[in-house]
């Protein structure tokens, strides 16, 4: 991907050992499948929780979101989703952004965004659960 292989002296095996342009081989491909499988039941549960919370008072929402089972499902949903969307957006960036500096900045922004969304959501759920 980056740089020209004009003096390519490495054998194909040596290159494969380097696990390709991303240096992680098929790791992300596989993780995207794992998180998509996990995402099926978690998304169904997430939608059910949202529907159940519609129109309820703040006190009721706090109580339901803070109850252990709901909080655990929400934590699983958030963590799974954030990792899934981090890989997905990285894939989109690698497909369309070819300029090196812009690519670097965009990939970094993707990581910051996903960490921020994930951490903020997890913190909120934990605070609702522990009620500090």
């Amino acid at each position, binding site marked *: 991907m980056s740089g*020209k*292989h*004009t003096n*390519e002296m490495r054998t194909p095996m040596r290159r494969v050992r380097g696990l390709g342009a991303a240096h992680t081989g098929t790791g992300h491909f596989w993780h995207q*499948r794992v998180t*998509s*499988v996990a*995402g*099926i039941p978690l*998304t169904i549960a997430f*939608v059910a929780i949202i*529907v*159940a919370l*519609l*129109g309820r008072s*703040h*006190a009721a*929402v*706090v109580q339901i*979101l803070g109850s252990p089972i709901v909080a655990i499902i*929400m934590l699983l949903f*958030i963590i799974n*989703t*954030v990792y899934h*969307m981090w890989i*997905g*957006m990285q894939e*989109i960036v690698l497909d369309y952004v070819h300029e090196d500096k812009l690519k670097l900045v965009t990939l970094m922004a993707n990581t910051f*965004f996903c960490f921020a*969304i994930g951490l*903020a*959501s997890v*913190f*909120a*759920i934990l*605070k*609702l659960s522990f009620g500090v």
Partner: protein
Amino acid sequence: MADIDAGAAKGPQRPRPISPHLQIYKPMLTMVMSILHRVTGAALYFGMLVIAWWLIAAASGPNAYANVEWFIGSLIGRVVLFGFTWALIHHALGGVRHLIWDTLRGFEPADREFLTLASLIGSIALTFIIWAVGYLAMGGPR
């Protein structure tokens, strides 16, 4: 890359053969849905901002939560939420379709058309069902 450089050094310059890109094809359902899978994924990516906002507001207190409720109750909020619902369901069903394809099943023309159409119709139907249940749970549209 090595091939291109070697070619340029050897022969006279001539345009490299390029493979046809998207605009040369008539839009097919499977192709449009493939694009839509990525588009809905990207939309959900930013839609997660609303989910995070909602959770933080719930954790912050009644006043912050009232702001979220006001937004979700507004016309724009409902359009965003409806779009988010459809994108989520569509991306989920599209994901199931891709998982089926990952097992090397469903690649025959009739099968892939069926899977693609089923996920589109299914996502629209499920979105309306979820909203109907949501409104029923709230005691009717407000």
